[in-house]
């Protein structure tokens, strides 16, 4: 034991504390705050994430996992990346938006076929018609008769910026 307060270790995965009161590592998000954030921002009910555990590795990157693991875990990856915390505006990963976005009831921007193609190609586009909140949104479009989330976007000053990571961008046809 040392006298030092526990710090965030970028080399391993640590489970998020249950509530802010359980927090031992400075700046670490708690499970409660993550659940609240998804509920406030996207209307995703906390029970969607029941059974999943949340972990931090690196400065503020939160991972979501649905299996058994030791705490801490010294492995390469545990589940998938969910959210970037330790910054003023938390940012959902584009993959998390794809994976859980169908449960969202707010903060969802529906794109038409042409807008969807531009979004997935990584382009920013003017979309002044949006009258919801600014910030991170889940972009969706219709495929095979149902809404399907494409990824996360950042809405600021009448413009939707695609935050689809470079490796996941694609030039896809406009499907009317």
């Amino acid at each position, binding site marked *: 034991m040392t006298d030092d307060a526990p710090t965030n270790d970028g080399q391993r995965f640590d489970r998020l504390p249950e509530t802010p009161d359980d927090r031992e590592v400075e700046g670490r998000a708690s499970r409660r705050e993550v659940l609240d954030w998804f509920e406030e921002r996207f209307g995703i009910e906390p029970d969607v994430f029941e059974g999943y555990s949340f972990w931090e590795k690196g400065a503020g990157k939160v991972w979501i996992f649905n299996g*058994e693991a030791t705490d801490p875990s010294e492995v390469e990856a545990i589940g998938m990346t969910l959210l970037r915390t330790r910054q003023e505006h938390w940012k959902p990963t584009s993959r998390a938006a794809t*994976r859980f976005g169908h449960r969202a009831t707010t903060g969802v921007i529906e794109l038409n076929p042409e807008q969807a193609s531009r979004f997935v190609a990584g382009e920013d586009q003017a979309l002044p018609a949006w009258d919801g909140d600014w910030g991170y949104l889940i972009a969706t479009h219709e*495929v095979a008769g149902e809404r399907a989330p494409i990824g996360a976007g950042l809405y600021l000053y009448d413009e939707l910026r695609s935050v689809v990571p470079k490796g996941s961008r694609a030039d896809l046809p406009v499907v009317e």
Partner: protein
Amino acid sequence: MNPLERYEPLVDDAAAFRAACDRPLPSVVRVNQMAASPARVREAFDEEGVAHEPVGWHDGLFRLPDGNPGGNWPYVHGWTHGQEEVSVLPGLALDPQPGERVWDACAAPGSKTTQIADAMDDEGTVVANDNNLGRLSALRHNAERLGITNAIVTNQDARNFSTKPLAFDEFDRALVDAPCSCEGTCRKNPDVVDQWTLDHVHAVAGIQKGILARAVQATRPGGTVVYSTCTFAPEENEAVLDHVLGEEACEIVDSDLPVDTVPGVTEWDGETYDESVTRAQRVYPHHNDTGGFFCAKLRVGGEDEESAGEAGDGEVAA
């Protein structure tokens, strides 16, 4: 020497075998059924004008005659993954169930890991291991794209894999999709035939034995281990099984793959192998118009809970 010549004595129709090996293979995608049903993927392909054909023996596979499996909306949504037809077989033989603990010993770039996670309905734990960090980053990319949340990724030499970083020390099932000489992939990657050497066959066979032995050790009694390769070389297939049967408590069981296969061989190049290697299955390119493949399913010996009960009864099988 063309290594394919070496296997002509093993096949029923050498000319058809060689002709099939020379034909390119169509692109195939597997549906990630935790994200979308095959019917929805088919509808999305139709809307987008992506040509597709069914694969008779598996409704979650589509052939894409125009290629480019990653250039369409279903792929971007994480509904599909480009994966050769035969590459789906070991996952079917493994038959992982939701909630189990599964080890994918040689996992990168993750085609089979993601298939396993899907079969588990993303519940339980799949430990995806590979000793090649660069290939693991491709695995992580695939797992994230497909939205898999039940995988742990480790970077170890599978021959002496340690369960220390895990929350448990035994698996219900393990897959060894071993590094190999890969002639079975010649229809996709003709270079493998030119790069083939007998020295490599012998070197890689040693690694395969070590990994398969470790997989049997790390799996609970009564659990399942699947061994697969994309080579025709008996040195890397039946000889590896024969070796591990001799060293570890396990037996080969039938795996009933849904394609035309022939039994494993018991003799090769002056060596003979345990009779039970005939339960392993060889997949030749000319039988199903696929790549070449080898797959065996093992049951780990020792007493599991069920067989312990039976043994306690004494004279069950009089």
